């Protein structure tokens, strides 16, 4: 035995590979025995993988002379002066875990999750609040940093309930993800967990305050972005809780955003509660059409149902916020929908009929009236393609009385700068005061301006394309009213024929926001019942009426939009959030037009 041991010792330097399998084998490397050689070898590692900033972000240097160099895990990065350590790490492509830090809110530095090691600093530093200094050597992957994160995570999980299976945030929870990545597999806390009374923040935001980790993102959002100082941090120590102290609803129209910024399941969407798990949802990147901002949204759907709407980042338009109207409008997509072509019978009741018959009836009536008695009114939610088709169709019929509700009768669409918001939305931040009036531009860009101001009074044939807010009392009683739209709204009560159309979540359409930036919706869910895209209905009607419009695909109608002689409706102004190449790629052969499918 003794001899064998000696023999193995003697053999080790020679045939060490034979001993790799030994259970108790202490690996020693030449660089550990001579630190000098290791130090000389360390910088000679040119094979560092090329680092790119997190999320492909670009770094803006306001003043190139102020650039400083720091080292993140040994990798040198150039950053502008004034960046924090966390931002420097992001530039180097290292994602630092964080809860309280949010790039659009003030820095609180209270969750301590972003601790990193900085050389010559006695303690780990909170990277979100620490300004990066020239030559700083930041280490994000050392045992000190890992232990610090693990410790913080243990503290955070101390009072956090283990209700992930019934939590709506499950699957998209920062705490869940980061505890998997940085946390320990067990905690040492054996006492009772704290519980907190849930607050009533209104019908949109559901609160489960026991889950709160006191990151104060919602408090800072309410104060700094939403501008309502309602939320606060009450109490101290382990009794600390987020609340309004006095019972108060969150009255801001941006309140839904606290659902997104909450890193845990403390603030969740009330209408979405227990409806679906986020991994069951299909996300479709689309555009909000309920207001003229044109917020970029993601429509999350499951099967034929839109289950929620969340914001998408667009620095120039909505940053990463959306209004409550945008976020929660989706419940309307399920109710009061028009799903079949219908005609009003002699008894005043609607009767379902086929598309072929409905279009034949409309075409016949349209031919019976004089051209100047034909009036077309587009609704506020109409997309550019269908408005173009409506205008082309009515022009072919000989009428130019086509406009969009809400824009008024005597609008001038001659000069584009006369009606778009020339100071962009991002420019609003610099304004002291602003007044927005009449912000719907799509129709004006396409030249939807009525020829005569009193055309409604003399109309015999009125074509309402989703127009519900127009005053229909002035329409003569003997006029024939066609309502093409997706909801049984006020326009339907006067309609003689209903042609069901697709809502914004179900079609591919171009929308222009108030600053003149064109963006595109994409279909997230199938249409309801027998409904069709707006422009397809008009295209089909034109064929039945014998005035065939010259476009069969959505791509063709967009080309028509572009060279319509009015204003080119290019996507995304100069900033191009969607480019034409992308749009062209969306045109599939199945878009080939079939008038009556």
């Amino acid at each position: 035995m003794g001899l064998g041991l000696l023999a193995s010792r003697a053999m080790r330097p020679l045939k060490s590979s034979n001993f790799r399998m030994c259970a108790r084998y202490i690996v020693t490397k030449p660089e550990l025995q001579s630190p000098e050689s290791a130090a000389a070898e360390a910088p000679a590692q040119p094979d560092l993988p090329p680092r790119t900033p997190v999320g492909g972000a670009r770094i803006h240097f306001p003043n190139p002379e102020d650039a400083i160099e720091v080292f993140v895990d040994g990798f040198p990065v150039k950053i502008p002066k004034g960046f924090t350590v966390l931002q420097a790490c992001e530039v180097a492509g290292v994602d630092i875990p964080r809860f309280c830090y949010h790039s659009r809110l003030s820095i609180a530095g209270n969750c301590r999750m972003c601790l990193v090691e900085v050389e010559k600093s006695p303690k780990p530093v909170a990277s979100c609040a620490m300004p990066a200094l020239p030559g700083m050597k930041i280490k994000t992957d050392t045992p000190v940093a890992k232990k610090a994160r693990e410790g913080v995570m243990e503290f955070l999980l101390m009072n956090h309930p283990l209700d992930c299976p019934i939590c709506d945030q499950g699957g998209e929870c920062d705490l869940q993800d980061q505890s998997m990545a940085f946390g320990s597999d067990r905690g040492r806390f054996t006492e009772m967990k704290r519980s907190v009374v849930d607050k009533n923040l209104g019908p949109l935001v559901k609160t489960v305050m026991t889950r709160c980790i006191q990151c104060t993102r919602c408090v800072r959002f309410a104060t700094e972005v939403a501008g309502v100082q309602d939320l606060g941090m009450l109490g101290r120590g382990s009794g600390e809780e987020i609340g309004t102290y006095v019972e108060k609803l969150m009255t801001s129209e941006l309140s839904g955003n606290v659902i997104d910024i909450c890193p845990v399941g403390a603030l969740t969407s009330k209408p979405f509660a227990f409806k679906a798990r986020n991994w069951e949802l299909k996300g479709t990147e689309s555009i909000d059409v309920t207001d003229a901002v044109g917020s970029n949204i993601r429509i999350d759907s499951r099967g034929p149902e839109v289950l929620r709407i969340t914001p998408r980042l667009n620095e120039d338009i909505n940053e990463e916020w959306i209004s409550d109207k945008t976020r929660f409008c989706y419940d309307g997509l399920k109710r009061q929908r028009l799903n079949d072509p219908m005609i009003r019978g002699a008894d005043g009741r609607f009767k379902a009929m086929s598309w072929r018959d409905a279009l034949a009836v409309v075409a016949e009536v349209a031919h019976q009236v004089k051209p100047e008695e034909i009036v077309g009114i587009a609704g506020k939610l109409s997309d550019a393609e269908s408005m173009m088709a409506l205008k082309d169709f009515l022009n072919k019929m000989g009428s130019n009385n086509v406009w969009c509700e809400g824009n008024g009768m005597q609008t001038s669409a001659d000069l584009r700068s006369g009606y778009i918001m020339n100071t962009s939305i991002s420019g609003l931040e610099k304004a002291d005061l602003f007044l927005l009036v009449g912000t719907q531009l799509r129709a004006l860009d396409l030249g939807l301006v009525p020829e005569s101001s009193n055309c409604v009074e003399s109309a015999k044939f009125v074509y309402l394309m989703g127009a519900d807010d127009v005053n229909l009392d002035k329409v003569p009683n003997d006029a024939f009213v066609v309502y093409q739209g997706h909801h049984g709204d006020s326009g339907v009560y006067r309609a003689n024929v209903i042609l069901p159309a697709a809502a914004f979540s179900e079609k591919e359409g171009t929308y222009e926001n108030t600053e003149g930036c064109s963006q595109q919706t994409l279909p997230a869910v199938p249409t309801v019942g027998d409904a069709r895209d707006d422009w397809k209905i008009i295209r089909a009607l034109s064929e039945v009426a014998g005035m065939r419009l010259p476009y069969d695909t959505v791509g063709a109608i967009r080309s028509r939009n572009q060279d319509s002689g009015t204003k080119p409706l290019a996507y995304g102004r100069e900033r191009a959030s969607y480019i034409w190449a992308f749009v062209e790629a969306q045109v599939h052969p199945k878009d080939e037009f079939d008038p009556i499918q």
Partner: protein
Amino acid sequence: MLARVAAQRLHEIRQAFRLSPRASRSFSTALNYHLDSPDNNPDLPWEFSDANKEKVREMLSHYPSNYKQSAVIPLLDLAQQQHGGWLPVSAMNAVAKVIEVAPIRVYEVATFYSMFNRAKVGKYHLLVCGTTPCMIRGSREIEDALLKHLGVKRNEVTKDGLFSVGEMECMGCCVNAPMITVADYSNGSEGYTYNYYEDVTPKRVVEIVEMLRRGEKLPPGTQNPNRIKGGPEGGNTTLLSEPKPPPCRDLDAC
């Protein structure tokens, strides 16, 4: 064998939890959220008295006019003294109005500090120090004696509205532990006192309560007749001579 040891240990742990007098210690006199009640709701009018308005002006003069919110703590304290020792929500709203911030910012401060009472307290609010030195010297017995004598629970007010008992963290009198503090709100903000009674015993605190009830004045400080302030019982035993100058410095040369 191992199982028996484990079972025994578990039993011990359970016993330890069972015997702990309170599951959680709460130093605040109220919840962290407000519930409307007839004597505490935002609709009740509340204003600083004329005499206190002068004080408010004086307090605000300590701060630059664009940092009025710095006066939130002194103003809340003044409001508490004026309102008999506690802060109704309308008083906090009044303070928020004076310093021109949103009310929630004042609620945050008032809920953070346990010295601000957001529920009714007695005219004499007795605060027992519960920090380690006082606890070792018997603060729990003192609190029990007070509660038993007054027949109330912690943070409850006696029926006559005179006394309430609360707990506080260290007030820096550890050399004379155990101690209690008496916040006297019986004379409004003019006659407000906040006195320490040190070296108390369960018997002595009951005597203090009875003297307060009779309206007698008693000197604050140590209640041990054999001690002078923080000095040792029976006079000094050390440092009897003149203190020597520091050895390394020639003070005359200065």
